[in-house]
């Protein structure tokens, strides 16, 4: 095995549909992941237990053992991140999956771009959880920038506290420490709200809306949370237009 391949994130996909499975296998391989494809539930569970994977991608309706059962068994001993994939788009199924310990839920049909965003979000969150971020980039200009207070979970700007909630603080903090990088909704859900992203889930958008209002209320206008359509959110200055 060549030394580069060792560093690639490894993914186990458990998917019984040969067409979709092959396509996912090929596509993720091209994206730079090391993919193991397994078509049977029993076998998939065995592999997930024996080998160390970075992410497990799993269908719910499987021959042999159903995805939710695999998840139940797997969670007894392993904490490997699991993304459930299902054509059963029902809300109840999604809730069930999260209750059993799934990290994300992706309804079929999905685009490969979406799948990749979700996988990357989880990998990034895991990496972030493993090593706590170093202290914030050095404060540039005390008077004109926000001061983050981890103890109070709030930001301070020109004599005023913004009055953020814990989630809002976490969200603003991660946006701030990522600099000008656009963070995907999938990642922000994973990192801030500790759950998968679903199209009808508006909690994150609502937090963003509140952050904007609160920053505006304390008169902070040097940078603002911008929406990058189809990608995510970024905290950036005014001059970088959309």
């Amino acid at each position, binding site marked *: 095995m060549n030394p580069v391949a060792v560093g690639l994130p490894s993914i186990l996909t458990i998917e019984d549909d040969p067409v979709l499975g092959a396509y996912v296998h090929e596509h993720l391989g091209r994206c730079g992941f090391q993919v193991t494809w397994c078509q049977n539930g029993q076998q998939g569970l065995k592999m997930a237990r024996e080998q160390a994977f970075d992410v497990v991608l799993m269908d719910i309706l499987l021959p042999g053992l159903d995805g939710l059962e695999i998840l139940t068994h797997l969670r007894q001993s392993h904490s490997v991140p699991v993304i459930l994939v299902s054509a059963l788009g029902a809300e109840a199924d999604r809730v069930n999956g999260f209750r059993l310990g799934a990290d994300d839920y992706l309804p079929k049909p999905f685009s490969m771009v979406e799948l990749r965003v979700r996988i990357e979000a989880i990998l990034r969150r895991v990496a972030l959880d493993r090593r706590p971020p170093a202290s914030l980039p050095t404060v540039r200009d005390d008077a004109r920038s926000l001061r983050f207070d981890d103890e109070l979970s709030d930001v301070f700007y020109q004599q005023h506290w913004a009055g953020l909630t814990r989630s809002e603080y976490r969200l603003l903090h991660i946006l701030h420490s990522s600099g000008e990088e656009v963070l995907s909704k999938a990642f922000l859900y994973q990192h801030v709200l500790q759950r998968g992203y679903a199209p009808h889930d*508006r909690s994150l958008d609502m937090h963003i809306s509140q952050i904007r209002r609160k920053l505006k209320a304390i008169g902070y206008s040097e940078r603002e949370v911008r929406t990058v359509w189809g990608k995510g959110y970024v905290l950036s200055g005014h001059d970088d237009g959309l």
Partner: protein
Amino acid sequence: MTAFEGCLKRLPGKHSLFWKLACLLIAFCLLMIWLSWSWGRYMEQQNAYLSETSREILSGYAAGAELAWSTQGSAGVDAWLQRMAARESTWIGVIGNDLQSLGSTPLTDKESQRLTFLRGLDWPVSRHVNGLPWLKIPFPLDPSVGSLVIELPQRFMPGRYQLFWRVVTNGVIPGLFTLLLCIGLYRLLIVPLNQLREQANAWRADQLNTRLSYAATSRQDELGELGRAFDHMSERLQGTVVLQQQLLRDMSHELRTPLSRLRVACDSEQDLAQLRERLGREIDAMQRLVEDSLQLAWLDTERTPLPVEDIQVQALWDMLKENACFESDWPASRLPCLLGPDCWVRGNLNASAQALENILRNAIRHSPVDGVVSLDGRRDGEYWHLWLEDQGGGIDERDLERIFAPFTRLDGSRPGNGGFGLGLSIARNAVQRQDASLWAENTGQGLRVHLRLLAA
């Protein structure tokens, strides 16, 4: 005190069947006991006395004995006694006031013994003594002279039909009353159950619109409750089935449109880029249709309450406005929110956002060029009454309710183009899941959609 109240609480309610049954059974038991007691007594009494004819015959005998004594003395009595012995098999004697025989034959000791306890003609005759009773019948014309003593012949003994009357009073009549009680209980309990069974059978035959009679559901007791629960269940069942059928029919109809477009695209010769773009568009439409339909079905069938939180309407509007501006290319100034930051409602964020977003999208779609869609509202006691107003000219008064039905498109717009007509019905279901209400009204300028949400 609390233990007492607890006991009281465990008692059946005022209209419970328990009280009816208890009253009925207690009354029945008391009636039975009273009947058998009083009738038994009456019958016993009736059967203890000699009948009218027996008395007349016996009085006749006494008159005959007196006649024999007064005309011929002891010889006459002897002759009369001889005649009588042929007629009656029991002992007969005629005695004077000194308790000595008036005939020539004196009384034996045993007979004298019997004379110490004699019954009158109108005394009750007990059945419980051994043997036949002895009666003393004074002479009718001059009772001081003497009396006829007779061992009562068996045929005059009262109570010959006593067994029969016992059977009637202790067996037949209680039996009949119990039968009546049974019929009453059957009508009270089983007839309503039979109606329920008939309705269940009607469902089996796919007649979901059958309902119980008014009499069955208007009862106040447990059976009435059961009937109402049953009716409610069939109502719900019918609603669900109708909705599902309608949804399935409409959905397959709607799916045909993108499918037929795809078929055309597949058959016609186009270059790959165009085909791919067309494919992507139609797949998006189909996916949206499936998701919306599932969402609608989910909102309608799921009965568990949604988690609620406090939502600031202004922040919610800002969030929806950003999306809407991106989708429609409207400037934010055309979507003003006239509510202050103090407007907080209590509800489920996702459902509320979806409802308001769908209403907003609908308003934008039907707005004229440079139209304005505004959100306003006022506090109404425990509620916030919000309304979203457009300038799209409004709709026909008759359609104000119809726009909330799934797959309703008023202006005959092409399917898939202006949506599938699911947005407002999803909005209504999402609002109703939170015990809030949603309705529409024409303002003259446009349509005003009202929302009544619980205030935080």
